[in-house]
C-alpha cells in the first residue's frame, strides 16, 4: 500500500551500498600513475631479502591507506551533513556551518605561527590544533546560540555565520602579516588534501568516525520528527534538546576528525545528503547510513581523479569535489525535478 520503509528494505539497500563501496575501493586501488597488477602484489612483501616487491608496496602502503582515508573522511562529512541539515532544518546547511571550518583554519594557523613542533599520536601539530580549533569553535557557537534563547536554531545559524566571518578575518589578518612559507602551506592544506596516512591514524580515526555514525543511526527516527520543528517533536514525545545536543556533538566531533585528517574538503557534506535525499526520499533512518556510504564512494572516486588527472602532479581533492559535485548535483536536480520540494 503506502511506501513505508521496512527494516528489510533498509538493510538490503545498505548492504547493496556497502557492496558497491567495496567494489569502488578495489577498482580505485588499481588506478594510478604506476600500473600495478594484483598477481604481482599478491606475491608478498618482498621478492627477495634485498628487493621489496614494488607492486605490493604501492598497493598496501600507498593506495589502500589513502582510499581508506577517503572513505573515512567522506562518510564522516556526509553523515554530519545529514544531521546538520536535519537539526538546523535548513537544506543549505553543511558540516562546516557552525564554525568548524574557520575554527580548524585558525587552529592550524596558530600551530604554524607559534612554531609548535611536537606531535600527538603521530599527528602533526597542524592537524591537532585544527581538530581542537574546530571543536572549540562549535562549542562557542553552541553556547552563543543557547544564550540567544528560545529560537535556538536561528540563533545557532546566526552565531555560526558571525563566528565564521570573524575567524576568517583573523585568518586573513594572520596570513597577511606573516611572511612564513609555512602559512601558505597551511592555506593549501586547508583547501582539502588527502595523503597517505599511517595505519594507526587510520584505525583510530576510522574507529571514531564509525562509532559516531553508528550512534547517529539510533537518532534517525527522532531526526525525522525534529525536522518538523521542536514544538511538533516535543508534542510527539521527543526530548528535542537532548537529541539536538547529542546529534550535534557527535556530528561536530566526526567532522573535526575529518578536518584534522584532510583539511576542508567542501561540497561532500552538502551535496551527498541532497543527492541521496533526491533519489530515495528524506527518511533519516535510511538517509543517514546511505549518505555515509555514498559520501565514502564519492570521495574515493574524487580522490582517485585528483591523483590521476594531472599526474604526476596531484590536485587538492577539494577542487575535484567542488568541480565535479556541482554539475553532478545539477543533473540530479533536473532528473528528479518533481521531488524537489524545498524550492517550492
Amino acid at each position, binding site marked *: 500500500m503506502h511506501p*513505508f520503509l521496512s527494516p528489510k528494505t533498509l538493510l538490503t539497500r545498505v548492504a547493496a551500498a556497502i557492496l558497491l563501496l567495496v567494489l569502488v575501493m578495489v577498482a580505485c586501488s588499481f588506478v594510478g600513475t604506476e600500473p600495478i597488477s594484483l598477481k604481482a602484489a599478491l606475491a608478498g612483501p618482498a621478492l627477495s631479502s634485498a628487493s621489496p616487491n614494488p607492486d605490493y608496496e604501492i598497493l598496501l602502503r600507498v593506495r589502500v591507506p589513502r582510499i581508506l582515508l577517503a572513505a573515512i573522511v567522506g562518510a564522516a562529512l556526509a553523515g554530519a551533513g545529514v544531521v546538520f541539515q536535519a537539526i538546523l532544518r535548513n537544506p543549505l546547511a553543511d558540516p562546516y556551518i557552525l564554525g568548524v571550518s574557520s575554527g580548524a583554519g585558525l587552529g592550524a594557523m596558530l600551530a604554524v605561527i607559534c612554531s609548535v613542533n611536537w606531535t600527538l599520536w603521530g599527528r602533526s601539530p597542524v592537524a591537532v590544533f585544527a581538530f581542537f580549533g574546530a571543536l572549540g569553535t562549535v562549542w562557542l557557537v553552541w553556547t552563543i546560540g543557547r544564550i540567544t534563547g528560545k529560537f535556538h536554531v536561528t540563533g545557532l545559524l546566526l552565531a555560526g555565520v558571525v563566528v565564521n566571518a570573524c575567524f576568517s578575518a583573523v585568518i586573513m589578518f594572520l596570513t597577511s602579516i606573516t611572511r612564513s612559507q609555512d602559512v601558505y602551506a597551511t592555506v593549501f592544506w586547508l583547501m582539502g588534501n588527502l595523503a597517505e596516512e599511517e595505519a594507526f591514524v587510520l584505525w583510530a580515526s576510522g574507529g571514531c568516525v564509525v562509532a559516531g555514525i553508528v550512534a547517529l543511526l539510533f537518532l534517525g527516527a527522532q531526526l525525522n520528527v525534529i525536522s518538523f520543528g521542536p514544538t511538533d517533536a516535543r508534542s510527539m*514525545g521527543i526530548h528535542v534538546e537532548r537529541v539536538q545536543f547529542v546529534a550535534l556533538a557527535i556530528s561536530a566531533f566526526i567532522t573535526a576528525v575529518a578536518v584534522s585528517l584532510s583539511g576542508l574538503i567542501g561540497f561532500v557534506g552538502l551535496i551527498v545528503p541532497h543527492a541521496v535525499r533526491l533519489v530515495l526520499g528524506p*527518511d533519516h533512518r535510511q538517509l543517514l547510513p546511505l549518505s555515509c556510504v555514498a559520501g565514502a564512494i564519492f570521495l574515493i572516486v574524487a580522490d582517485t581523479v585528483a591523483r590521476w588527472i594531472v599526474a604526476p602532479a596531484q590536485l587538492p581533492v577539494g577542487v575535484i569535489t567542488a568541480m565535479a559535485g556541482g554539475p553532478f548535483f545539477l543533473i540530479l536536480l533536473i532528473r528528479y525535478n518533481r521531488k524537489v*520540494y524545498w524550492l517550492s
Partner: protein
Amino acid sequence: MTTRVQLHNVTFAYRPDQPVLKDICLSVEPATFLAVVGPNGAGKTTLIDLLAGLLEPQEGIVAIDGREIHSYSRRHLAEKVALVRQEHVPVFGFSVAETVLMARIAHVGQWGFERPVDRRTVADALDVTDTAQFASRPLADLSGGERQRVFIARALAQDTPIILLDEPTSFLDLRHQVAIYDLLKSVQREKARTVIAITHDINLAAQYCDQVLLLQPWRAASGDQSHSAPGAGAHYRVGSTHQVFTKSEIESVFGIRVFSASVGSENMFLPLGEMAKDAGRRGPPQPTDLA
C-alpha cells in the same frame, strides 16, 4: 478513553508581573469539544502550550487524568495529548504517509520501525480524514486544507484521548472550514476524543462545540475597572455556547458592535465596522436585516 483535563488556578507569565493567563480554572470532561476563543493576545496559544506540556505554569496545576502534567514523562504525555499547530510546510519532502506514521514514534521503539498495529492505526487515520488518496504524495504538493487534514490525521494516529488544535481553519475557505469541523466533530463523537481547538470563528464554534472558553487579555480585563469583566474578577468565561456567546459578552470582549441572530438554537454574530458601507444608513441593526 475517559480522560479529564483540569486547570486549577493556573497563572502563566512570559514576563514577571505581566501575566498572560491569571487564575484560570477549567475542567473539561472526557469526549468534549471545547472551543478556545478570544482576541489576539488573550493567551489562547499559551493555554494550548500549557495543555501540551510545552510550558509550565508559574502557579496552579494543569492536570490530565488527575495527574499533574509535568509528572508525566515526555513520551507518556505524547500518548495522552496530540497537538496540531497552525498550518505549515516542513523543510524536507516527507510524504503524507510518512508524516502520519511519525506520530507513532511514542509507541514504537528507538529505531522507529512500525509494527502492523501502527500501520493499521495510520491507515485508519488516513481513511477517517479522507487523506488516503494522496498518501504517497509529498506534503508540499497538497493544498492548505488537505495539509491541515493530514496533520489532523497525524494527531489521530498518535492515538491520544486529547487532541489540541491551534486555529485549524485559519487559512481555509468556507467549504474546507466546515469539512474540518465536521471531521473534528465525528472524531469527538465516534472515537470519543476530547477536542480542544483555538478558533477565531465564533459562529463555527457555536455550531460545533459543547463548551467554550472565552479569554480576554488579562491587562484589558484588570485595567479597566468600570468595564464589566467577564466572570467575577476573572479575565475569562467558561460555559456552554449559550452561556458564553451572548451579544453583550462578545461586544465587550472584542470591543466591537455586533449584529446577532439565532440560527437554530445557537446565537450567531456578525461584526459591524464603523466604516462599513452601510454603517451610516443603518440604525441599530434589526433582525429583519437578515431577510
